[in-house]
């Protein structure tokens, strides 16, 4: 079986380029326009739960939808278009419109107990694993 989480060659290349730029002393671009999937996620396993974190600056709580089903997590939302007439856009690097991403998790999660929080543009989702997927301590017989 192929591990679902491994660095693709492109991710690895970008990481190396980032390091190179760090050494030269430049800041790195953090523009979503340069990535194919949105939002980017960090996933960590904390034993009984999985924690998924994503950066979603400018997205309002009411414009964000999160679904968990089996071992899939969907993050879906949109940015509200900026209102106003007589405007000239000199620069547009921030993303706009809608986004949707389905993330395959390594284990099934308990859909009813998923908790999500959006704060300062950072989304944190806590997904408790189903009982069968939780780590178990094996007692040694004496």
């Amino acid at each position, binding site marked *: 079986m192929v591990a679902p989480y491994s660095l693709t060659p492109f991710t690895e290349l970008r990481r190396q380029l980032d390091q190179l730029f760090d050494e030269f002393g430049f800041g*790195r671009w953090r523009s979503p326009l340069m990535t194919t999937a949105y939002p980017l996620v960090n996933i960590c396993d904390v034993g009984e739960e999985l924690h998924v974190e994503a950066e979603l600056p400018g997205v309002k709580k009411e414009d964000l939808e999160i679904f968990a089903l089996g071992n899939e997590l969907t993050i879906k939302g949109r940015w509200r278009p900026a209102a106003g007439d007589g405007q000239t856009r000199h620069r547009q690097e921030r993303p706009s419109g809608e986004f949707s991403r389905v993330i395959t998790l390594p284990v099934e999660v308990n859909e009813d107990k998923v908790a999500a929080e959006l704060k300062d543009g950072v989304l944190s989702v806590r997904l408790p694993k189903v009982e069968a997927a939780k780590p178990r301590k094996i007692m040694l017989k004496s």
Partner: protein
Amino acid sequence: MVDTTLQKREAQRGEAEQIRSGPMFIPAVDIIETNNEILLLADMPGVKPDGMDINYEAGVLTIYGRVEPRRKGDENYLLEEYEVGDFSRRFEIGEGIDANKIEAELHDGVLTLHLPKTPEVMPRKISVKA
């Protein structure tokens, strides 16, 4: 259109504003000009109002957002697609901005800067004499 376009300058390391080690990121920005002001929006997820530092000196506007590390160090990361770090970017501001009246707001990880134009550069309707 008035000649007040902000000119981007890449944030550079080793300058006074970088006070912490770790990766630093250049935030994505939108720059919008209306009749009365120039609006600058910068994506700075994870920055709280007290971590925001905005400076204007000699025609250079610097925005710096401090991001508290969210990683404790003992987590088992299965996937790490992005790194967390501070945000910094500098802009050269042309003539025509009233620096004393610059206002800033921070909502949902987005910094909004209002840069009001000085009256001299605001569009005026010229009425034609009969």
